[in-house]
């Protein structure tokens, strides 16, 4: 990272204010995820039945749920769990997928073909159904949501890293590294991967939004996170029972939180693609 890179990023952001907005949004979500439990106005778990099902008002900005819990507080606290699931799942699939993909892209041959078919098989399943099956089989726990989300993301990273490394395997500086005494493994890990990482960061950002949605989706259908814990997917699922009686805030606010987080990560990913696109540089 040099000052030139920062200047370049600054130039892109000026020409692309949406990315700046998205970056700010992601930053806010991260802040909330870290400090959420300390800044909430009410205890997110303690029920207060007399206050149940209050519409949004000055005391409860996002209203209260059927047990009188403050929806706004629950939203803030839930951010940590949702982001943690998404970040760790994407982190795992990124780390494993990038290495597998890079090795396949560089080595080619039989290994590449075998891994390629395995990826094809994995992608032939409807991914959400696959995640559901895995969580159901492995046990209804948060860690298993992370594992399932990581596995269904893996093919994208393997393919991406494979393609990016494959086009670079014959460039001069790879041969130069070999002539300078690097082994094949060292070329992949120390030369090719670092050059592929910026492009993959785009994929990571786009993927994070999707992983949040995936985790929320699993909770919504009752897999993974269990009810008293505040989590956006569960909150939507819980609130859905009251929507026919006009208690819209129970569903709308967690839904909004989900939508905004996914939107911010996706817009940031698009913006990063512009920042990292070499054709945008001079």
């Amino acid at each position: 990272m040099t000052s030139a890179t920062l200047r370049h990023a600054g130039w892109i952001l000026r020409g692309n204010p949406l990315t700046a907005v998205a970056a700010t949004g992601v930053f806010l979500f991260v802040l909330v995820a870290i400090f959420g439990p300390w800044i909430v106005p009410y205890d997110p778990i303690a029920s207060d039945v007399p206050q149940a099902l209050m519409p949004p008002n000055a005391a409860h900005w996002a209203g209260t749920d059927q047990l009188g819990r403050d929806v706004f507080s629950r939203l803030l606290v839930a951010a940590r769990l949702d982001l943690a699931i998404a970040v760790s799942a994407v982190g795992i699939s990124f780390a494993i997928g990038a290495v597998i993909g890079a090795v396949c892209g560089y080595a080619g041959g039989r290994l590449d073909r075998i891994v390629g078919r395995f990826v094809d098989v994995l992608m032939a399943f409807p991914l959400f159904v696959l995640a559901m099956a895995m969580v159901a089989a492995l046990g209804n726990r948060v860690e298993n949501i992370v594992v399932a989300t990581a596995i269904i993301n893996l093919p994208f990273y393997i393919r991406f890293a494979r393609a990016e490394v494959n086009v670079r395997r014959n460039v001069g500086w790879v041969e130069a590294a070999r002539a300078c005494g690097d082994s094949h493994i060292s070329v992949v890990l120390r030369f090719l991967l670092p050059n592929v990482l910026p492009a993959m960061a785009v994929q990571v950002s786009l993927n994070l939004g999707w992983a949040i949605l995936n985790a929320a989706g699993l909770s919504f259908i009752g897999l993974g996170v269990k009810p008293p814990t505040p989590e956006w997917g569960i909150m939507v699922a819980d609130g859905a029972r009251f929507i026919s009686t006009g208690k819209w805030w129970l569903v709308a606010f967690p839904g909004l939180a989900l939508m905004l987080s996914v939107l911010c990560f996706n817009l940031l990913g698009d913006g990063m693609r512009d920042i990292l696109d070499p054709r945008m540089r001079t």
Partner: protein
Amino acid sequence: MTRSLLEVEDLHVTFSTRRGLVEAVRGVTLSLGEGEMLGLVGESGSGKSVTGFAITGLLDVAGRITAGNIRFRGQDISRIGGSDFRSLHGAAMAMIFQNPRAALNPIRAIGEQIADAILAHKRLSRHEARDEALQLLRAVQIRDPEQRMSAYPHELSGGMCQRVMIAMAISCHPALLIADEPTTGLDVTTQKVVMDLLTRIAAERGMATMLITHDLGLAARYCRRIVVMEQGRLVEEAEPMALFRAPRHAYTRRLVAASPTATSRIADLVTEEERGRYVEAKIAPRPQPQPGTPPLLEVQKLAKRFDQGSPAVADFSMMINAGESVGLVGESGSGKSTTSRMICRLIDPSEGEIVFEGQSIGHIPARDFHRSPFRKDIQIVFQDPNDSLNPRFTAFDCIAHPLLRLGRMRAGDALRRRVEECAQRVGLGADLLPRFPHQLSGGQKARVGIARAIACRPRLLVLDEPTAALDVSVQAVVLQLLDTLRREDDLAFLFVSHDLNVVRMMCDRTIVLRNGRIVEQGESRALFDDPQTDYTRELVDAVPHISTGLVEAAT
């Protein structure tokens, strides 16, 4: 004097970029008579291509003509808009580009593409257009034109594709053809065929041609008049002979000196003031090898087969003595890169022996060669300086890399001193070391590549077209540098190149390769002055230069 077809007067073209406005062309005035062939010569960034684009109205959206005018048949075309220009394109003026393959549509048969060009300007039926396309393929001398009509660009060689481009360009009988580096990237023999064809067609049809090129020799061979551009300005306009005998402008003098010809020596390539260090190095006597010492490198019956099919290299035997420079020339596909990489132990030979300093190294798999003690003795300089440096390494990291890996050095003061010493030997300022490749010029990148290769004091340096991507003036300096390093370190060179003039200067002996087999080898000067085989003779003849003029000038 023929009637004037094109008049460019005080042309200024400005590009708006992130760093503000950049003036690419600053006041170019030139004229072109009907049927005339004009050479527009300059190095990269001189604005020669931009001038061509401005004339054809094909400037990039960021570029604008800010002053001056372009008159074509007396009509000012510098301010007219898109649709008016489109009627001019093809019918009145046409353009052909470098890299013809990229300019052709890869999923459409070439016959169809030529017919499309015809139909854009003429009211004809599809059938008639196809007939005309066939005539054009005959005119550009494509063999079996009936069959080639349905061929796709990837089925044709580069030279063939350029002929197709020429066919499209002349399809509507333009009065002016602008050829932007039409033969760059083609082999010399193909270049000669394509240029001869272009010249003949232009003469037959009375078409004026503007040949935009970086190659003075090429322009001199085919044009009656040459204009030289530097940094957006026109610095000199003359007939080729006059230009070579008595260049008036300092830049032209440098350019003429830097362009290698059949008779030039390395010392001649740069002007007096740039020479300095080179002369000193040259005076130092070269140690003669003791008689009876084994050669540094001996290669026997080397062969490489990829998958099935005919071998890329077969029955290749050679030897190099310590401190000797051997050239390996051949056209694309001759197997010279494959051979150099086998010798460099980056790929495995299918059969044959490679013996380095009396030890057989051919049997060590390329996969494990990085652990061999000989790895640091055999190094390589790559063709394209742009893609031979890791974009995430600074110049310092690049040069330090082999020292850390092969030289067993640790990060620290000793390493820094050694890197700075290497950088200084190749004429790279210490202030450039923290820069990343994209912050360096082509010549600077080439220097980093050379510094990296010599960092571990190799005995044999394989140079794979080390100057092919550089401007001639930069090439001149890099060639001198390489020659100096060779003399100072008693390095042996295996110099791979398609540029015969460069090989003749740089190498004691030369090997001519064709289709993976050695055609001829011998002492460089003898080989080029008196080729023994038809193929070598053909190669030598195809090299464009105006040697006669230079010989006269020298005497």
